[in-house]
């Protein structure tokens, strides 16, 4: 388990952060620019020193002000993927990858070069220099380098912020594989909702140096006060589903969860596999009864739980669908016309088609924007 | 009164400065003097230095100027002489016997003999002549520590890095760390002469007066105070 509790004054800025995360999976530190995300992971890496508190990863204590423990950076064995990659320009990709590996005793090497090269698709790059690599390739090498240092913990500081959409789409699947196939806790700093939703298990919302919300991604993202907390305009819910069957003729897959069934473009997961969907509030339509003669495939019966204003003319409607929640952003005029209030039975309509094909990638936890 | 600019070999510095002071007191004429290597001074005169008087430590450089008509030939005199001496660090017990077949090479052992570079520093040229006349040059030449000026040779000896050195008697006085342990007999090397002359371009009457003062018994007495000897009569 990762257990972080630190306090630090940085000039006029006070950092006071505490959170815990599981041994496995991705913990996303999410917050606006300047909220203190980098400061937190720098403290975890040991690149900066908290005034007080403790930082533990599993059995290892990295820092404990009470016990006067402060392990040197180079002894912590945390993999750090920096925003600007920081590959060593004078070494080949191979030497970069092996830099951390060589500094770990042979007996402790669990992660070998071959599989990482395989995992991250670096085979063709090994003899090249960082200078010639594209942004996406660069970050993949940085990821591999950090991994091969046999880290107890992987830190990533906005590893995709400098990449354009295409490069980002190229690297996301690799991080997912990492999360799913390696038993290393990952702390991911991000201010991009889509990244967090797609990758994170746990979400820690940071504002002004403090944790304002933390928990499973679905729970945090489903909160109607999220935009107030985080500035996320892009409200939406996160559903975890399983593949029920593939409808090969139409190129679709049927996914099931406790609230019903969704049809989406074919997911590259076996039947029974887990898939995560990020359902944007702006993509959910509320109807009083299932309509017919319409291109929308998915109609989920549910009950209105809450209605909250989300803008001058719009409202967010939280709808319980089975044990999960959806959020629909609709005009207030529609709320009035449909007489939506807590308790009202409604049908949530969700378009199944609206996502880019390149968002499809394998992984036990799948995210598809709907 | 017009100032006089004297270019003088570095080894005459102390005497010339004292004489300049006396001259100023007597006549009110200020003497400005520049001390450097004779070669540098000669070349400066050649290249138009506005000097009035040149005191060289070396006949060659005075000849060099004379050949180029850069001095007033009739003003040229051999002002001073000097003695060539062997020095050792203060407290040294070495006492070389300076004569043909003498013990100088033996005393040197595997140490070095510090002196000016015989190829261009006057004192080195005299040392070479003297050692040649003793028939010891071939033995000693590989053991020379050649310096670009007398002061460096003095330092080598006074620091004990070289057990012996050859310098002018006047130089030996500069460094309290050395002692004169032998004097080359006058016949063993060409006479040491410090020639002096007015430059060809000077029109400064005071320069003539200062030259006369240097040549006067009063002037020569001051030079002798600093270890110079009267100039030998040249053939």
């Amino acid at each position, binding site marked *: 388990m990762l257990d972080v509790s630190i306090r630090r004054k940085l000039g006029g800025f006070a950092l006071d952060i505490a959170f815990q995360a599981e041994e496995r999976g991705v913990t996303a530190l999410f917050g606006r620019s300047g909220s203190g995300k980098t400061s937190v992971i720098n403290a975890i890496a040991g690149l900066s020193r908290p005034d007080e508190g403790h930082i533990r990863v599993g059995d290892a204590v990295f820092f404990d002000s009470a016990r006067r423990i402060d392990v040197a950076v180079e002894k912590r064995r945390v993999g750090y993927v920096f925003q600007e990659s920081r590959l060593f320009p004078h070494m080949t990709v191979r030497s970069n990858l092996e830099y951390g590996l060589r500094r770990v005793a042979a007996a402790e090497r669990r992660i070998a070069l071959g599989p990482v090269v395989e995992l991250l698709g670096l085979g063709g790059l090994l003899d090249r220099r960082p200078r010639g690599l594209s942004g996406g390739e660069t970050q993949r090498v940085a990821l591999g380098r950090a991994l091969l240092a046999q880290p107890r913990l992987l830190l990533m500081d906005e590893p995709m912020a400098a990449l354009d959409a295409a490069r980002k789409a190229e690297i996301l699947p690799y991080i997912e594989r990492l999360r799913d196939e390696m038993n290393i806790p990952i702390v991911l700093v991000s201010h991009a909702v889509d990244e967090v939703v797609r990758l994170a298990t746990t979400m820690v919302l940071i504002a002004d140096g403090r944790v304002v919300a933390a928990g499973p991604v679905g729970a945090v993202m489903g909160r109607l006060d999220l935009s107030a907390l985080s500035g996320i305009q892009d409200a939406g819910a996160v559903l975890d589903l399983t593949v029920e069957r593939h409808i090969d003729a139409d190129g679709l897959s049927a996914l099931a969860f406790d609230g019903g069934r969704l049809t989406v473009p074919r997911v590259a997961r076996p039947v029974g596999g887990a898939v995560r969907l990020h359902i944007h509030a702006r993509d959910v339509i509320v109807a009083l009864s299932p309509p017919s003669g319409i291109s929308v495939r998915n109609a989920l019966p549910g009950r209105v739980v809450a209605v909250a204003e989300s803008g001058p003319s719009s409202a967010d409607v939280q709808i319980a669908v089975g044990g999960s929640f959806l959020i629909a952003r609709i005009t207030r005029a529609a709320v009035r016309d449909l007489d939506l209030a807590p308790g009202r039975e409604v049908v949530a309509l969700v378009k199944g088609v609206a996502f880019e094909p390149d968002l499809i990638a394998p992984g036990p936890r799948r995210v598809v924007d709907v | 009164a017009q100032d006089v600019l004297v*270019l003088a070999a570095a080894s005459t*510095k102390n005497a010339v400065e004292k004489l300049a002071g006396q001259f100023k007191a007597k006549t009110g004429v200020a003497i*400005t*003097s520049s001390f450097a290597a004779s070669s540098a*001074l000669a070349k400066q005169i050649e290249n138009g230095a506005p000097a009035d008087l040149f005191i060289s430590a070396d006949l060659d450089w005075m000849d060099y100027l004379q050949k180029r008509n850069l001095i007033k030939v009739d003003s040229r005199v051999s002002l001073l002489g000097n003695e060539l001496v062997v020095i050792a660090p203060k407290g040294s017990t070495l006492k070389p016997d300076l004569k043909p077949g003498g013990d100088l090479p033996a005393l040197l052992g595997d140490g070095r003999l510090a002196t000016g570079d015989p190829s261009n520093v006057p004192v080195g040229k005299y040392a070479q002549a003297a050692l040649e006349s003793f028939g010891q040059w071939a033995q000693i030449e590989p053991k020379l520590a050649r310096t670009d000026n007398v002061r460096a040779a003095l330092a080598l000896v006074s620091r004990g890095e070289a057990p012996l050195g050859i310098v002018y008697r006047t130089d030996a006085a500069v460094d309290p760390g050395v002692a004169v342990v032998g004097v080359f007999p006058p016949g063993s090397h060409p006479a040491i002469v410090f020639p002096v002359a007015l430059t060809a371009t000077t029109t400064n009457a005071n320069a003539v007066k200062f030259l006369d003062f240097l040549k006067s018994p009063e002037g020569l007495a001051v030079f002798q105070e600093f270890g110079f000897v009267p100039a030998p009569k040249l053939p």
Partner: protein
Amino acid sequence: MDLLSPMEMTALLLSLRVAGWAIVGSLPLAVLAAWVLGRYSFPGKTLVDGLVHLPLVLPPVVVGYILLITMGTKGVIGGWLLQTFGIKLIFTPEGASLAVAVTSFPLMVRAIRLSVEAIDGGLEAAARTLGAGPVDRFFTILLPLMAPGLLSGAIVAFAAAMGEFGAVITFVSNIPGRTQTLPLAIYAATQQPDGDAVAARLAVISFSVALVALMASEFLARRLRRLIGQG
């Protein structure tokens, strides 16, 4: 206690003046050389680069001789200067400045060149699109941005100029009050029976001046860098 005799004080002040003028006077040429070498490629660039380094490579006495031969009143340039402008360099403080300017020139060019090379060429392109021609860009963009490097180069060159001996004594001789700078005074002191202590004292003073200059340059360079928005 008087640290310095009047004559030594004269030598110190003269050194400061000689070195100061040398740096100020050679700065424009050094900047020009650094700019051209740092920004442009042209045939013979290596030769120019070599010539700039020449005074570093040659013994100072040789530099002094070359100056004497060319810039003396009988020399080609020196004679012309004398006849045309009545400027005489030999035996003058101005000549001493020239001598130390020449020997410290390579140091200055190297330092400034590095700071020229560090300036983002994109800024010049931006200035071009804003209508600035080459000279305009040089004064409004390059010069201010190279200022910290220029300062530190100038100060190191100044410190080196304060210590120059061979070129000075060979070119302008050793005239107290006119061309006897601190190093020449140190040399003169070593020619006297009791001069070692004086020489040591003068050497310490020389070092202190250089140290102060270096400290001042670090400090000023930091401030300058902040002033031009890069600290």
